């Protein structure tokens, strides 16, 4: 019986010094999968390495020696990290726990920022790499595809990734709830803080093309304008530009408000009341709080945005609980599939399929032949039984012969596909149900009947 094991370390198990090491390794060219042919006890191997984690997933028949081998690959992958004893930061999961861990990583339940979407892309890239190196086979192929579909399920069934957890992104989401489409909106940046820059970047990513920059020091304004392909306007013209812009991001060091209730109120009529969204991330604030009372004007300051982010984090944590449930369920399902990838269940499934076809056809035929005597019928039954038995004899002998091969899973998988005994390895990430749930029952029957 094959085992799945996972050896790795992440931002929870290793301190930042070690993770810095990881970040370096991330950028290096050498790929640990190239070591696979030298590993005797390891069947298939998949490795993921980002600056927050390394994970090695592998299959093996006997766990301990395989772990030692993978550990040595992992250590050489990480290079010689000075005085640290790396091994104490590793964790090892086996079988269901390993599968569950991988699903959790893919669903971003194990990420530093819960629910962040990049990790799935990183896993997909690493998987592509592994297929190129021919390091993955029947089991890990299926496991990886399953992890993609689990991640998708988590994303669509929980709200884990649906709400912004950074201040700049929270501001952009608000803008989308006010304006809908952002591509035809004009943005004015006043001041040039780092946060404002981030928010501006997010806005650009959302399709905003027209940006204006106003800053007291011209050099900085020009620099920013270059970065965002924006125009610069003199600081004194800010009030005039309020007629044409839709989103205003302020982050100046001014101690006095630079935009007041009166300034804005008087310009709304000229704007024909088109909505105006102010994002004030300066401390002290650049815009009078009362501005929010004007019709069609929305003002968010840094505390408002922080509040939203805080709330969203809580939502994500609540949703993570539900996601854990989904992940655990899918991990168990996957392991059940893995168990069926053995000789006995495959043979039993094959026999059952043949038997059910025989029964169906027999019933169909006999119902059309009412004039047959009991003896005739019995003869036909015997005939069908012996045809089925003889037809299945060779495939079954073949499968039994493979039972002590290290590659037996491939044969079992192939046999199952050939006879369509259950869903073949999931090459496209579509979730499959039904068969997987009914199959374990068959498995129990199998064990009894083979004894």
């Amino acid at each position, binding site marked *: 019986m094959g085992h799945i094991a996972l050896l790795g370390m992440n931002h929870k198990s290793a301190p930042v010094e070690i993770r810095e090491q990881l970040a370096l390794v991330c950028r290096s060219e050498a790929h640990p999968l190239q070591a696979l042919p030298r590993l005797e006890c390891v069947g298939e191997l998949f490795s993921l390495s980002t600056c927050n984690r390394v994970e090695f997933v592998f299959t093996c028949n006997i766990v301990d020696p395989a772990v030692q081998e993978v550990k040595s690959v992992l250590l050489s992958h990480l290079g010689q990290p000075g005085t640290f004893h790396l091994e104490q930061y590793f964790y090892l999961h086996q079988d269901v726990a390993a599968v569950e861990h991988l699903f959790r990583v893919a669903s971003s339940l194990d990420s530093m920022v819960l629910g962040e979407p990049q990790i799935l892309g990183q896993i997909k890239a690493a998987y592509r790499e592994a297929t190129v190196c021919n390091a993955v086979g029947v089991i890990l192929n299926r496991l990886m595809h399953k992890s993609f579909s689990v991640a998708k399920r988590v994303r669509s069934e929980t*709200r884990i990734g*649906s*709400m912004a957890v950074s201040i700049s992104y929270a501001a952009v989401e*608000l803008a*989308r*709830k*006010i*304006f*809908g*489409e952002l591509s035809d909106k004009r943005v004015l940046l006043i001041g040039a803080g780092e946060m404002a820059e981030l928010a501006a970047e997010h806005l650009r990513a959302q399709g905003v093309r027209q940006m204006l920059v106003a800053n007291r020091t011209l050099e900085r304004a020009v620099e920013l304008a270059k970065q965002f392909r924006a125009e610069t306007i003199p600081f004194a013209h800010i009030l005039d530009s309020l007629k044409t812009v839709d989103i205003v991001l302020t982050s100046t060091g001014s101690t006095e408000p630079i935009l007041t209730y009166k300034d804005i109120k008087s310009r709304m*009529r000229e*704007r*024909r*009341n*088109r*909505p105006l969204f102010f994002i004030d991330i300066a401390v002290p604030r650049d815009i009078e709080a009362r501005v*929010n009372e004007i*019709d*069609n004007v*929305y003002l*968010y300051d840094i505390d*408002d945005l922080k*509040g*939203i982010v805080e*709330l969203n984090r809580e939502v994500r944590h609540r949703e993570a609980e539900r996601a854990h449930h989904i992940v655990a369920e899918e991990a168990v399902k996957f392991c059940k599939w893995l168990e069926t990838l053995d000789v006995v269940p495959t043979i039993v499934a094959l026999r059952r399929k043949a038997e059910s076809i025989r029964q169906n056809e027999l019933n169909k035929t006999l119902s059309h032949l009412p004039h047959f005597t009991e003896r005739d019928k019995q003869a036909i039954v015997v005939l069908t039984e012996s045809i089925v038995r003889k037809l299945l004899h060779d495939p079954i002998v073949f499968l039994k012969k493979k039972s002590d091969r290290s590659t037996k899973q491939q044969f079992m998988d192939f046999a199952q596909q050939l006879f369509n005994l259950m869903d073949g390895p999931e090459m496209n990430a579509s979730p499959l149900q039904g068969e997987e749930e009914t199959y374990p029952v068959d498995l129990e029957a199998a064990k009894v009947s083979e004894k």
Partner: protein
Amino acid sequence: METALLITTTLCYLCGTVGYLIYLSKEEDPIHRAAWTFLFLGALAHTTAIIIRSIQAGHLAVSDSSEALSFFALILVATYLVAQIRFHIRILGSFVSPIAVLFMLGSSLLPVHMVPKTGIIKSAWVALHVTLLFSANALFALAFSAGIMYLMQERHIKRKSFGRLYLRLPSLERLDRINYVSIVIGFPLMTLGLVSGFAYAGTVWPSFWSWDPKEIFALVTWVIYAVLLHERLAVGWRGRRAAWLAILGFSAVLVTFLGVNLFMKGHHAAFVR
């Protein structure tokens, strides 16, 4: 036959509404598809029922309040179904479909009167008058729903407290746009509907204007929408005020349509009682 069809219709609308209300809290495609299909099937059954009744009566079946409410519910559902195909504003269904159900239930609760045939009702003018006005009213119902959604969503954003619906409701600009488009199309329809009514009244009664309560309220409604449209186009009113005015306008529609039918006398009463 038509009673069975009308009951089917009401059940379909009810299922559709329940579907849309679930969809409000749970965004899943199959739920929306099921809800939409229920409304669609309901509308088919409803159309058949009204055609049968109209053929039996020899004129468009709007000769009492029960039939009028039912006909309005059909036009409302049809308008929403078309709007959904055209503009993909699914969540609007959660607000519009309950209105249709209320009208259907109202229609089935009101007694059916056998109105003495006056001959007036048989004219094609009446069918035109009623269809135009009901279509306008259906669009105003969409504007009303969008207005309510706008006020809810604006409240979330202004007060900075985000309820569950915040994520589900569309952006403010989109809601304002729905409000605007519905009224821009609805207002000319209403105007034509009123003009056709007055023109026809002029031919069958001594005068086209007779201080009938329904006429007065209809004019008030017309003025409200005229103001809303004018302020929008000329001054650039939008957002909260436009939403409130759309809500006020539809309330006036309801008074004109239901209040006058049920509680006041007048010469419309001859065929709405």
